[in-house]
């Protein structure tokens, strides 16, 4: 039930993103709409492709998660004024995460946590990017009306999603091996946070398109 609702919200978000795609001026936000569309299609495809060991699912996540992270880094690197976020560190971290994803794909695909580990690594790194964005807001002399800044909505979505998910997803496999029911219960949080994330993405896309119209 909650899973279906999450899928529905995701589809709505992808539709909104694609509808506004041409009106969005921020390049990497446009890329995000495309990424979400591809991600959504992949999710649907996985429903119909037989994948008994979930290897295909894990492989797909191992490859797509670094790509998603790269989009976020580029998005905030281009918009932010924070010198740290502009440094090579974050570009380097994309490469490291991509290599980690490939490593998991090649050597650890049999393990249940193959994709989760990549997800957790991405979560920590994304939180770093997002926190630097918030630090930038506090430090900057510039006055931004946050409600009208699409990057704020994306950052808030990512902050809630990854702070909430680090433990919910990180603990999932350990807890699942001991008590599947409790693990599933904890995993509900993932759905709720995903719904919240997609709603905020939709708002960000709409705001980005409206900002462009106003120009």
């Amino acid at each position: 039930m909650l899973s279906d609702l999450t899928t529905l919200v995701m589809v709505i978000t992808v539709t909104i993103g694609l509808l506004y795609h041409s009106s969005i001026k921020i390049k990497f936000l446009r890329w995000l709409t495309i990424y979400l569309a591809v991600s959504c299609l992949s999710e649907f495809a996985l429903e119909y492709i037989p994948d008994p060991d979930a290897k295909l699912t894990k492989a797909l996540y191992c490859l797509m998660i670094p790509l998603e992270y790269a989009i976020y880094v580029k998005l905030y690197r281009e918009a932010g004024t924070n010198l740290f976020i502009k440094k090579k560190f974050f570009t380097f971290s994309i490469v490291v995460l991509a290599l980690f994803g490939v490593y998991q794909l090649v050597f650890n695909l049999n393990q249940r946590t193959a994709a989760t580990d990549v997800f957790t690594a991405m979560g920590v790194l994304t939180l770093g990017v997002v926190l630097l964005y918030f630090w930038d807001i506090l430090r900057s002399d510039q006055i931004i009306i946050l409600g009208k800044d699409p990057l704020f909505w994306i950052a808030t979505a990512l902050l809630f999603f990854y702070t909430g998910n680090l433990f919910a997803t990180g603990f999932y496999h350990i807890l699942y091996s001991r008590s599947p029911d409790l693990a599933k219960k904890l995993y509900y949080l993932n759905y709720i946070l995903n719904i919240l994330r997609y709603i905020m993405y939709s708002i960000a896309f709409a705001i980005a398109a409206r900002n462009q119209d106003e120009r």
Partner: protein
Amino acid sequence: MNDSGSSYLYLLGLISTIVFLLLAVFIVSFALLFQRRKLQSLQEKNDLKAAYEQAILKSQVEVQNQTLQRIGRELHDNIGQILSVIKLHISIIEESTQSGELHEQASAVSNLIDQSVADIRALSKSLDGNFVQDFGLVQSITHELDRLQKTRRYETSLQVEGEAYSLGFQKEIVVFRVVQEVLNNAIKHSGANRISIILCYQTDQLQLSVQDNGKGFDFDEALHRELNGSGAGLRNMQDRIQLIGGVCTFRTAPGQGTSVDLQLPLHEQDSL
């Protein structure tokens, strides 16, 4: 691991997640609050700056009024009196010489003195703010145009549309001084020979337009000249009209004359 171990793990995960989520809420709320404070602070700073600028402008207008009034009074009471005494002496000479060249010259000087006294009286009225208070904006502007007309170098016209009402002395004196400055600019720089003023009294606003058929000018270029250049004068006029809640617009281009339009809403809040 037994059930209690699993429950412990579950609780740990749940509590950690809740703590982290609360931290996220705190970060976002803090950023929002911080930006709002920054916005408020900027707003207050801007308000203070605007209030300070308005106070300066207001005192400038007051000083200008007082100075002009004093000059007007001096002209009327002092120079006017001296001319009257000269006129008296000339009259004595005129009477003592019944005919001849001296009599004619005395008579010509007497006429010139009459004209000078009249001009000084007119100028004194023009400088005196009380004239605006006593007779209103339309009469004051009519008086200004009459003065120009008398020089025979300008053809002037005044058109009043709608039923005239008072904007109040404070506003009218500012409008009147701006009109005087526009006329003065037209005389000094435009090379115009026709000046017309249209006053349009509407229910919600007064529209006043001063037009000349002079050589016009590049408004943007003039506005961006040095502060002590003509740009300052134009800006100052706009500021003064803004001070009373109105808008002052210049429509001009080289070779196309100049039109200065004032829009003065009736119920606009102003600082005067």
